[in-house]
């Protein structure tokens, strides 16, 4: 077990190790009188740190092999005592993976291939010559190489929750401590009363990052105010929105931040047990959490009498088993209790009767990741970022029709346009931005007219969407909004728990109407019925899943009603997506009569003789698009 003094010693020592990886590390080192890196836990000092992303994105693009090869080459070149390889969490720019950064230079190699490794090692690590042609192109300017934080993707970002992701080795507690980790827990346990901690959170203005944005301090205050022999602190790591993966990245990149925050929460509300409910689909996150919990216990940062303060706190992991609804707080608790993950009515709220009927707080991963820094830097620091009612930063998972897909963390109040056009690099292929979808199946679409709205909880709600957990999907002119609404409804129907009537049957009926619309079989009465169902589900469903399930429909109806009407009245899909409403045709001027299309067609729908213009029989055509893909003359089009 470590005392607070020992923690500070580790921190001092490790700070010198990890500060090598700061963007201006070179200057720090040059300025420092003792121009040397610190010794790590094993007593080693390395002049160069090579960080290789070990997040899920880069792992699936082969970063483990890169790391192995790197270590082998380093050894082969006799650099083992000078250069170390660090497996980190996610850097955010997943589309460019596998990602590698070399410190102290801060050079950023993207899409690294195994074959590239010998060159990087011999040229860069051995001789000190940066391998320019392998760098992320945006960092290579005519005259110099710019640091990552000056690139478009990073320069508007402000990393609080993600601050250690891609910086430290998440499997080494010492590295976390070196960044000031567990300092906040030390401060709280030795200098603060529980009510002080809650006041700090209240003053910071932190709101839940999982969806609805409930003030975190208030939640803690309610739970602290209810007396009970046992209370619980839960962490929602059941990130289920399609397209959102910030919680996974934090768990993979900085698991100790979550553990530390949960212990702080335990102290604040008077709980000695924590549970992290994490998706089983996140094996890397699970493994890192297991390691982190083990290490924290070893250091006595979890367990009995932490920092000799008399405060006990421990954490257990519980794995989800594939049910989106378990992201809902009462369903999550029901699931931890070993039941079908069905929500229960509130009140009673979890702060009074939560897990195992005891007062419980539940926050999501990103919320927790902010907390240690709020304690260390003070609530004013946090409240200085963001908008009036939404403080701090928010992480978004940027995806869809956009150049730079990945994770971005921006101060609240950044406009959607800044995210899409500057950070995201705009819509590719010269297409026009049509809408952005936030909040996943619970959220809505934001059309171009609202691009300049500063993003915060309340603004998103006012335009019919919601923050959600932070998925942000960009859609271009080729996206059919009815089809998008249908996509989300399919998801909700699959994930409805089936407990309450409106959601169990209503979502199914909504989906059926949407299917009718996309097939051109719907009437305007069906549209009325669809809207009626939307409002019915919003006000009548038992939990947030059902209450928000209509949002994708309502928001697309709000901004793109004409598209619905085009499907229903004109039997046309303006974006050319809904198969039943489009026809494949052959341009007689372009068709050379090569017969390839006719041979490709699975339905024998194309007729025509060799060297004569071909025709598609619309009766037989399945609209699979195989012919269009095959045609070498661009003669086939759809309308």
């Amino acid at each position, binding site marked *: 077990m470590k005392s607070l003094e020992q923690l500070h010693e580790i921190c001092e020592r490790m700070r010198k190790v990890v500060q090598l990886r700061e963007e201006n590390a070179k200057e720090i080192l040059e300025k420092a009188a003792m121009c040397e890196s610190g010794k790590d836990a094993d007593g080693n000092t390395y002049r160069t740190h090579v960080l290789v992303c070990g997040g899920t994105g880069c792992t699936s693009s082969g970063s483990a092999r890169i790391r192995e090869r790197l270590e082998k080459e380093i050894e082969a070149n006799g650099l083992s005592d000078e250069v170390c390889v660090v497996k980190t969490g996610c850097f955010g720019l997943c589309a460019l993976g596998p990602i590698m950064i070399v410190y102290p230079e801060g050079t950023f190699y993207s899409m690294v291939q195994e074959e590239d490794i010998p060159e990087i090692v011999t040229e860069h690590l051995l001789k000190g010559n940066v391998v320019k042609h392998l760098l992320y192109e945006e960092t290579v300017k005519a005259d110099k190489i710019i640091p990552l934080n000056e690139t478009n993707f990073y320069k508007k970002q402000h990393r609080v929750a993600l601050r250690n992701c891609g910086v430290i080795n998440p499997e080494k507690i010492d590295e976390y401590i070196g960044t000031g980790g567990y300092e906040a827990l030390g401060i709280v346990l030795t200098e603060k009363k529980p009510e002080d901690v809650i006041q700090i959170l209240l003053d910071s203005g932190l709101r839940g990052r999982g969806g609805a944005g409930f003030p975190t301090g208030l939640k803690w205050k309610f739970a602290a105010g209810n007396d009970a022999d046992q209370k619980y602190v839960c962490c929602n790591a059941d990130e289920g929105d399609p397209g959102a993966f910030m919680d996974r990245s934090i768990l993979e990149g900085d698991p100790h931040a979550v553990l530390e925050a949960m212990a702080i929460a335990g102290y604040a509300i008077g709980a000695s047990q924590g549970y992290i409910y994490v998706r089983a689909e996140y094996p890397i996150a699970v493994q890192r959490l297991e390691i982190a919990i083990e290490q924290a216990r070893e250091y006595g940062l979890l367990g009995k009498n932490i920092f000799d303060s008399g405060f006990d706190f421990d954490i257990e992991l519980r794995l989800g088993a594939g049910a989106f609804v378990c992201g809902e707080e009462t369903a999550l608790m029901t699931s931890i209790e070993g039941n079908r993950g069905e929500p229960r*009515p509130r*009140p009673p709220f979890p702060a009074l009767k939560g897990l195992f009927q005891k007062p419980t707080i539940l926050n999501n991963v990103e919320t927790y990741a902010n907390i240690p820094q709020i304690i260390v830097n003070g609530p004013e620091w946090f409240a200085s970022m963001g908008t009036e009612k939404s403080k701090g930063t928010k992480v978004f998972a940027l995806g869809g029709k956009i150049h730079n897909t990945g994770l971005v963390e921006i101060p609240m109040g950044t406009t959607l346009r800044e995210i899409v056009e500057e950070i995201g690099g705009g819509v590719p292929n010269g297409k026009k931005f049509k809408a952005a979808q936030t909040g996943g199946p619970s959220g809505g679409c934001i059309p171009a007219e609202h691009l300049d709205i500063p993003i915060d909880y309340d603004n998103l709600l006012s335009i019919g969407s919601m923050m959600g957990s932070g998925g942000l999907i960009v859609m271009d002119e080729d996206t059919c909004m009815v089809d998008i609404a249908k996509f989300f409804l399919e998801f909700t129907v699959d994930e409805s728990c*089936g407990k*309450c*009537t409106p959601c*169990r*049957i209503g979502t199914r009926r909504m989906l*059926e109407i949407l299917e009718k619309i996309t097939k051109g079989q719907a009437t305007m009465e069906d549209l009325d019925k669809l809207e009626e169902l939307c409002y*019915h589900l919003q006000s*009548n469903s038992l939990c947030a899943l059902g209450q928000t399930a209509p949002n994708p429909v309502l928001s697309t109806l709000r901004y793109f009603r004409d598209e619905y009407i085009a499907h229903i009245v004109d039997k046309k899909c303006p974006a050319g997506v809904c198969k039943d409403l489009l026809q494949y045709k052959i341009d007689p001027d372009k068709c050379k009569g090569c017969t390839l299309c006719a041979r490709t067609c699975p339905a024998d729908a194309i007729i025509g003789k060799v060297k004569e213009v071909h025709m598609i029989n619309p009766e037989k055509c399945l609209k699979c698009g195989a012919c269009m893909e095959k045609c070498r003359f661009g003669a086939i089009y759809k309308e």
Partner: protein
Amino acid sequence: MGNVNLKINGLNVTAPAGSTILEAAQAAGIKIPTLCYLKEINEIGACRMCVVEVKGARNLVASCVHPVAEGMEVQTNTPKLLDSRRRTLELLLSNHDKKCLSCVRSGQCELQELCQELGVTDENYFEGETTHYELDESAVHMVRDNNKCILCRRCSAVCEKVQSVGVIGPNNRGFATFIGSPFEMGLGDTSCVGCGQCIAACPTGALYEKSNIDDVLAAIADETKHVVVQPAPSVRAALGEEFGYPMGTDVEGKMAAALRRIGFDKVFDTNFSADLTIMEEAHEFLDRVKNKGVLPLMTSCSPGWVKYCEHYYPDQLDHLSSCKSPQQMFGAITKTYYAEKMNIAPEDIVCVSVMPCTAKKFEIQREDQDAGGVPDVDISITTRELARLIRKVGINFRSLPDEGFDDPLGESTGAGVIFGATGGVMEAALRTAVEELTGETLEKVEFTEVRGTEGIKEAVYNVAGMDVKVAVASGLSNAKIIMDKIRAKEADYHFVEIMCCPGGCVNGGGQPQVHADVRNFEDVKAIRAKVLYDNDAAKTLRKSHENPSIKRVYSEYLGEPGSEKAHHILHTTYVKRTVN
């Protein structure tokens, strides 16, 4: 906790803190419709019928689970709410088998009633995909028709929480959710005890007993058969509800008259064999006490309880009294003593029982229940089936005269009639056992300590210098508490009465359906039990051993209680079963 003040529909209402909006409204005379809510059993806020508007709340709230608060302002019947409830019903109907005309619950269906009340005019308003399920007819006593299930979960809550059996529950999720047993096993293959409490809980026609009324009519029409009928004590306490009498009306006389008009050759009474059961069971108890047999002795009248014990406590079967239940004793004596007396071959007698119980349909098929070489009882129908039978054959129940039962198996004492209420068997047994032990006549025949509808009652009686410790439990979750104690050897009872259904047979799974609106706010068990206790109090003979017909059966046929012949005819054996 004190009271809180709130406004419901503009009215000032005071309600105890902690009560729900539904309860507060009910107390103020305002009805809020419910469907999934069963008080203390199924409080899950799932069906969304009981939604109300609470000022300041973002969405509608489920009044069945939402607690009242000081200053709360509630609306229960705005046009928006009425519309919401109708839409919810229409959604339910869109995946409901709407064959109402032929449905066993037509006219007593809570879903149908709500559709009427809330003005559903188009049952196909929300058309769409429907789910299809095969009927589950695997159980002896009942049918499950998931096509009529609205997933209120009242049945599975009762099965799990009230009965601690839990053989049905929600499986799958979302639109595919259905109530069923593990691995789609038929109910008959599970350790279902047959209590029928799920049927009693079901608001629709998704659960119902297997009907045997056509078998009854066929037997009566068969001139070669001598058809006798025995209604259980509790039937007379509830049958009237089917014909518009207020709950708690004793219709014993009209019931006997109806049975006679249906065409039974003899109208007897299970109360008679209840007295006979006491003779045997009291004797068995005294014998076990005297000869250091296995104690506590546990009653075996309730076939649901017996089957539960066989499945869940197969190691404790020694505690069960070897006495057959009154239904079976009746059949056994009919096909032996009565058959001989009347000189009718046992196989030419059809013994029909009318029971408040569905498990009795299973009991008549048990092994070692064939004293006369043929099954003791041939057909067992529920109280509900009797009502249907009465209607089917065109008897105007309300205009019937009061009639009595036939001899020799129609005579009974007050001890027999109280069998239908929890604690009744214990009290009846004590009336006989105490007199037997002390040799003195009881001054007061009421043993009020074992009366009442609590789930578990305990009492100690000093009888002839010995402390007799008794316990009475009803509802299998309460039985479980007692059995776990006995299994752990932490109980020192001498005699334990257990009834499968909460409150005893008056609240059996074969009794007339009680609408949840009534069940949630009235003490049905107590109201029906009172009929039996009043019936008992009005009798001159109140102890089983004083029943002249019983005395005659022993003197003419059986000899002594516990005699070898009595054993052969009136006692049975049990089997070990597994949990599925």
